[in-house]
């Protein structure tokens, strides 16, 4: 293995940032949600890379748990999006601004 671990971390950083920007600039709730998934996966990549760097499997276990939680999160999140869409006939998050001061 010749590839430096830092390269993976930089890729992870780029993916995470792309996901973040996606959350900030997109209005469609589903695409925002996908961006969040992208962020989670970028973090998973970083965890696995750390695991490799440290020479133990704890990072991988953590990534595994992260996937489990992500699965649960996706289920609930999609359910929320569905009920939001039912209520407002729109998947645009800017339409849900009841908390406006």
């Amino acid at each position: 293995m010749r590839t430096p671990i830092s390269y993976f971390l930089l890729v992870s950083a780029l993916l995470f940032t792309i996901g973040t920007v996606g959350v900030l600039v997109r209005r469609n709730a589903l695409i925002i949600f996908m961006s969040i998934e992208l962020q989670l996966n970028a973090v998973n990549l970083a965890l696995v890379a750390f695991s490799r760097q440290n020479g133990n499997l704890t990072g991988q276990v953590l990534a595994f748990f992260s996937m489990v939680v992500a699965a649960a999160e996706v289920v609930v999140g999609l359910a929320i999006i569905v009920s939001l869409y039912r209520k407002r006939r729109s998947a645009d998050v800017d339409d849900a601004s009841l908390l406006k001061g």
Partner: protein
Amino acid sequence: MNILAPFIPAIPLAGAAVLLLTGPRWRDRSAGWLASAAVAVAFGLAVTVFGTLVSRPVTLRLSHVSLFEWIGVGSFRVDIAFRVDPLSTVMALTVTGVGAMIHLYAVDYMRGDPRYARFFAYMNLFVFFMLVLVLADNYLLLYVGWEGVGLCSYLLIGFWFERKTAADAAKKAFVTTRIGDSALLIGLIFMWSRFGSLDFDRVLPHAHALANGTATVMAMLLFAGAVGKSAQLPLHVWLPDAMEGPTPVSALIHAATMVTAGVYLVVRSHQIFEASGVALTIVAVVGLVTAIYAGLSAIGQDDIKRMLAYSTISQLGFMFFGAGMGAYSAAIFLLVAHAFFKAVLFLGAGSVMHALPDEETDMTRMGGLRRAMPLTAVTWVVGWLAMAGIPPLSGFFAKDQVVAAASQAGRIGLWYAALFGALLTALYETRGTFLTFFGEPRHRGHPHDPPSLMRTALVSLAVGAALAGVLGLSATSGLLPKFLTPVVGPTKEAVAGPSELVLSIISVAVALVGILTAWLVYLSGRIDWMALRVRFASAKRTFQRGFYVNDFYSGAIVGPAKLAAAFVAYVVDRRVVDGTLTGIGRLVSSSAGAARRAQTGLVRTYAVGILLGATAVLGYLVVRS
């Protein structure tokens, strides 16, 4: 039987409580009867206590009745405790005796008043506080009574508060006496800091050990309280105005009892005054100046009640003069005698007002009333002669002893001044008598003597005024001086001047000169006194207005105080205080309005906030490491 002492004030208190709580349910005059009975029972108890006191040997004539500990803070302890000794008993007898008669008089006098029961409730409350004042065994309880009578005075002066003059007079009395009361309170605190106690027994016997200056300060603070309460110069201005109250109030509170509290305080605290070299002299001078000032002012009054008010001020001045001369028993004697004859005069004035249409008080519209109101006139004449100092009436003995004290102490200047004061007394009182009851009738309506109850009270008090002299036929061996000896010490032996008999003759002569002068001017018909009034109009007005002291206060103190109050109310309060508060409110409101815009309700804006925070924290960590 001294265990009865606490009941003396307790019964009027119970009467006041019952009347206050169940006021309007008392039909007709029953409330007045109840109040009178309460005071009469208190008088009976006082007589019983007095009897037991007299039956004991002279050295044992003192007992304390402590009800409970009122304040206990560290070493400072004040009890609700009453003191039975000759001085407090004499005061209690005077208050309840004269008070009962005046209550009886008021039963008819106040008939038909819409707040009849409340009037008697206040009267009973006043008697309660006055008895607390004179029976208290420590200065703090005395102060409670002191403030309590001030409160009742306020309530009763302003009893007809629908009249603005009455409400204003009540306020004026309260505020003016408050100046003295504050000084008294400071004096008590000062006393506590020196003695660690306010009990008479722990303060007075040790007073002689005080440093001269300390004693002077303490005595002057106490005296300032007395000056306020007893309407001496320069705090006398409230008393003439206090005549806005019902006449029985003027008789009881502003002549017979409350205003004499200052004299009582000075006599009770005489050890402190003696410890200071100058305090007693100041007391004497203030009293004498007040007596002469008020005497001159009284000559100028046309209003019968104001004339009596100024005469009260002048008589109180004589009492202070006597106390200042060290003739304490003479001062108390004059106090007792004055309570009787001044009560007679006030109640007589009340009867006259009662009989004339529209509550007439102007003496220039009276005259010749002796034919229409013979009984009132007779009782008034007794009071007049007693006050002028004609033997064998009480006033003669009392005032004679006070005036003589100056001569016997060797202070001839003061003695002459006091004689001049006595002359003025005879003059203004005779003037009032002649204008009211003698000469040609100038009144309207058909006056007649008051109903029987009022007559009873008048006659009883007149008898008292006539006979009270037997209490002190001699300054040294009289009943009252001897009875008071355990408290105030024996009457000082004369060190100079003529004998007591010669002094008495001089006193009578002076009184007769005053009466004759007044007769010449007002009754003999040789002088047109109405023309004199016009000719000496400016002097007359000066006297009538009390040498413009009141006007001076209005201009120099009340006016600026009102201006300052207006400044505080309309500038400081409205602009600064309110402005600050509304400013804070507006600031919060406007900044909240601005901050409100941050809450867009858009989730993505909030996400920007999260990212901003995350980058900031991460940036800080990176830069730091």
